[in-house]
């Protein structure tokens, strides 16, 4: 198995863990999401709306993890993950005035702390930097990966792009 594929599996596990944490600690997630959305000026959402948003996010994360791990086009999954990271930075950044204001807890399901960082937004940026580095490592050298069937990639012929 190639290093790219191993890294993709690691990323998929991380994303799946984020989804599982959200659902396992649902009450905490609900509180965190309510605070985050409130601080970002979104809402207020009803309890049902909040729950639906959390479920939707968790389900999409599971789908994303599957796409990163199993899809014949892993770049799509990785790009979606990048978009999710960017959205998280924008939302959390807006809620915390880019780290200057309320130090909200991130309800993303990926708690991340460093002893020398006190600001949650700063810690989140470091975590996202690590995720980005992992995405860079997982990024396929070429897509479709016709020469590496072990990657789960499909051949050009299989995708019907031959002349």
């Amino acid at each position, binding site marked *: 198995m190639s290093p790219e594929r191993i890294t993709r599996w690691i990323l998929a596990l991380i994303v799946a863990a984020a989804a599982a944490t959200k659902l396992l600690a649902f009450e905490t997630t609900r509180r965190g999401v*309510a605070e985050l959305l409130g601080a970002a000026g979104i809402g207020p959402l009803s309890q049902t709306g909040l729950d639906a948003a959390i479920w939707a996010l968790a389900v999409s994360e599971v789908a994303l993890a599957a796409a990163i791990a199993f899809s014949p086009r892993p770049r799509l999954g990785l790009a979606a993950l990048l978009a999710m990271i960017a959205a998280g930075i924008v939302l959390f950044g807006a809620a915390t005035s880019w*780290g*200057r204001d309320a*130090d909200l*807890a991130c309800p993303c399901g990926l708690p991340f702390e460093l002893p020398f960082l006190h600001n949650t937004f*700063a810690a*989140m940026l*470091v975590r996202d*930097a690590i995720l980005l580095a992992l995405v*860079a490592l997982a990024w396929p050298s070429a897509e479709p990966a016709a020469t590496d069937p072990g990657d789960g990639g499909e051949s050009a012929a299989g995708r019907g792009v031959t002349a």
Partner: protein
Amino acid sequence: MKSRALLIGLAAVLAGSAFFVERISTSLPVIGSGGAETTSSGTTSSANPGQSPHEFAILEMGMGEVPVGSVALRFRVSVTEGNGPAVAYDIEPSETGLVQFGPLKAGAEVVVSVVAGGAICGFEGEETIGEARVRITGALGRQFVIVPVRTPSPTPRRHRIEVVDADEWAVEGARILSDGVTTELRTSVLGFVPFDSTWAPRIRVIPPPTRPDLVEEEVRVEPKDWMTLVTLDSLPARAIEIPELSSDFARASIDRIRLEPVDSRNWSREFRVHEARVEHVRIGTYRATWDVAGMRRRGVLTVERERVHFEESGPPVPLRQVEIGGSWQAFAMVPMQFVVLAGRTVRSVLTPSRVLSSRDMETFDGLNFTTPGRFGGVEDDGRIVFPDMAPGAYEFAIIGRPRYASLCLVVPETEETEVVRRVAHPVAAAGVGDLYGTVAGQAHSKPYHVEVRAVGQFEAMKPVKVGESYEFGELSPGVYAVRVVRSDAFEMLRSTGDCVRSTWRNVIVDAGLRVKLDFAVE
């Protein structure tokens, strides 16, 4: 390769931004949810060294373990501030052995004793079963201390009389008359007096002059019982008219007046003003305050059978607006998460033990029980605004999550500008700790529960099996009372002599700490 390089570059930019954000944020004042007396480090001090956001301290105290027995226990808190004399207060703890006291200044020396018995509770002897000395640190805010205690010595059983009013407030100074009583007997500040079995069992209880609202009572004492509870009836409450209030009412709307009795009762309640009349007031003398046209009027109100007299205590003082900065929008949408500024005087902090035990200290009842307070409104931009605050000491708190945030601030009387405070997320600033441990002993078919309580409306419970561990995570710093209870502990037909619940034990949970507390059941 190009994409990879781009992503690595982006990751480097994010990491650099993180350290930039961290640097910016730590240069801003960060306010903690309470300095911990036993903590040498914390976000509060590291973020803004040498300068506390709090302007006074409140000391939370807990007994190491609440002894089992029939002797009444209380805290005796002796406070020395600066070069002043030591002032002592007797405070009844909650059933879990918790109490709070304040406001206190930085550097105040506090001797906290746990006393068993004593004349104030109607016992002959008095024994100090534990003592701790603390100095209030410069961090101010909520500070915590645990007093280790030993089991009190057995005391001879003696009958006691307790005198209370219809609201169950102790009646201090009530006279006890009976055949055989040769010396004048008066109830203590807690309403107790010891009873001698040689006296005639029929006694008359005469209310003190400070309680003209009460009527005397005649009761029969059963000396073989532990105690006789005498409840004195009150004269009916009535609507009253205060001339000064009526003239204010004519020029501005007034819907509430706050009354506090000048005797030993420390309640503080708002009464409705209807058509310039104050409803349901009993005979007595009160400190009265009401707000009119941005000013607070203060005075002593004397309500007699035939007349009402109000004497102003100084000129009216201007009201101020208090703003708590930050992004508090979430509290506008979560039910029962009201933000309050609660008055913090010695009087208001000495919450009666039954209110402490009911964990209602900072709920609606608590606020109108001994603690004057005001609810805040969350603005669209996330600030919390408390309009029309009178000068005084206050604590910013959140009802429903009483340990989530705390800021002790003073609204000065002479300050002309608006008082504005900024809170940059108190929870993260203070951090949270964990409480965990094991329950050892002989397994039982009935399950056990670990209960945790704190001062204020905080209560949590988790099921645990014998031989297994429990854990309560993400607790805000504070004193927590913990015990283990078997599920059938409070069943009426349970056989006696069975160990079904442990005593309450108190521990300090501090930011970033994991506190271990093990229990053994039989």
